[in-house]
C-alpha cells in the first residue's frame, strides 16, 4: 500500500478522537483542529518512522502532546479573531452546557501533566504503558499522576453532582 494511502486510512479512523482529545486538553475546537493538523503533518513527514514505531498510537499522541505543550508556551494565546460572531439563538442547551462546563472546570483544576494523563487514559483509552511512551515518563509516574488526578476530581462538588454521589 502506498504510504499516503496508509496514512489517509489511519487519519480517517482517528481524526475525530484526536481533535476531541485536544479539546479536552484545553484547546478551543478551531485550535484543536489546527493542533491535530500540525501533529499529523509532522507524522506524515516521518511516516516511515511512525509506521515502524512499536506503538503507533502512542507515538502519535506523543507528537500531539508535544505540539500542545509547545503551543501553550507561546506568549499570548487569548483572543482569537473570527469572521462570524458565535452568538446565535437556538434551543435551550443549558443542561448540556452545565455538564460540559462542570467537566472542563474540573479538568482545569488539574495540572497539565495530570490532565494529559487523564485525557489519554479515560478518553483516548491508551494503556498506562502507552501513556508512559506518549509522555516520555515511567509507567509508575503515569500511575501516580492518574491517582492524584482522580483524587482531585473526586473532591470536585460539581462532578460529584453529575455522578449523582452528592
Amino acid at each position, binding site marked *: 500500500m502506498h504510504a499516503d494511502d496508509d496514512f489517509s486510512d489511519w487519519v480517517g479512523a482517528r481524526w475525530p478522537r484526536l481533535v*476531541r482529545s485536544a479539546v*479536552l486538553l484545553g484547546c478551543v475546537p478551531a485550535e484543536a483542529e489546527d493542533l491535530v493538523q500540525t501533529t499529523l503533518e509532522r507524522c506524515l513527514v516521518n511516516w516511515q518512522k511512525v509506521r515502524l514505531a512499536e506503538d503507533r498510537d502512542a507515538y502519535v499522541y506523543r507528537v500531539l502532546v508535544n505540539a500542545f505543550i509547545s503551543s501553550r508556551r507561546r506568549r499570548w494565546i487569548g483572543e482569537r479573531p473570527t469572521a462570524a460572531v458565535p452568538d446565535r439563538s437556538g434551543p435551550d442547551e443549558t443542561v448540556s452546557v452545565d455538564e460540559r462546563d462542570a467537566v472542563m472546570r474540573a479538568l482545569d483544576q488539574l495540572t497539565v501533566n495530570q490532565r494529559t494523563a487523564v485525557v489519554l487514559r479515560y478518553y483516548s483509552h491508551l494503556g498506562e504503558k502507552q501513556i508512559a511512551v506518549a509522555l516520555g515518563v515511567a509507567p509508575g509516574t503515569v500511575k501516580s499522576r492518574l491517582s492524584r488526578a482522580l483524587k482531585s*476530581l473526586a473532591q470536585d462538588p460539581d462532578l460529584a453532582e453529575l455522578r449523582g454521589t452528592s
Partner: protein
Amino acid sequence: MNDADVLSELLERVAERTKVGPPPMTAIMARAHRARRRRAVMVSTAAAVAMIATVGGAWLLSSLHNSGVGTPAQTASAVPTAAMSTPRLPSATASTPAAPTNGTSLEGDWIVRALVGTDGQSLLPKSAAGRVTLTFAHGAMTGTTGCNSVFGTYEQGGAQGQDVRFPHEKLGSTAVGCSEPPLLARLLDVRHVSGSAGVRYLHAENWMIVVELRRAP
C-alpha cells in the same frame, strides 16, 4: 460502575458535543510536502557548507604545506617572503658569492633540533634529541648522528648567502652499524638557508624546511 468508568463516560459525552468535520487531508498533505521540501533544502545547504569547509580547509593546509610550514618549530618570520615568491633563485655557483649575512651564516657549532623527511614527517626520534650535531668552519662540515661521525664540505652563495648545498661526492661518515637518523641523505636535498639569532633553517629547493639548527651552547 466505579469512578474511572463514570469519568470515562463523562469525558465521552462532553467530547461528543464538539462537532468535528472530515479530516482536511489535502491541507495536511500539502503542509507535509512543504515541510519535506524545507528539510531537503536545509540538508542540501548543510551538505554544501560542509563540502566548502572541507575543500577550503584542505586547500589551506595544502597552501601552508607548499609554503614550507613543515615542522612545528618553524615560524613564519623565519622564511623570507620575497624569496618564497621568487620562482627561480640563482644557483650557488652561478653568481659571485656574497658573504653570508648574520641570518644565513653557518659558521660554528649547531645542534640539529629537527630533521624533516620528504613527506613532511619528523625523522629525528626523541631519543636522539640534543645528540645530533653539525659544525661548519671555512667550507668544511663535521658532525655526529649520535652514532656515527659525518663529514664533508658545503658551498654557500647567492645574493644574501641564502643558497647552500652539500656536494654528494664530498660527504661521508663512519660506518658503525646502528639505528640513526638519515642526516646525510637529507643534507643532499638542502639548497637554501635562512634564520635568525641562534637559529638556522636548511631548506630544500621548494623552501620546505629540511633541518632546523640551534646554536650549540
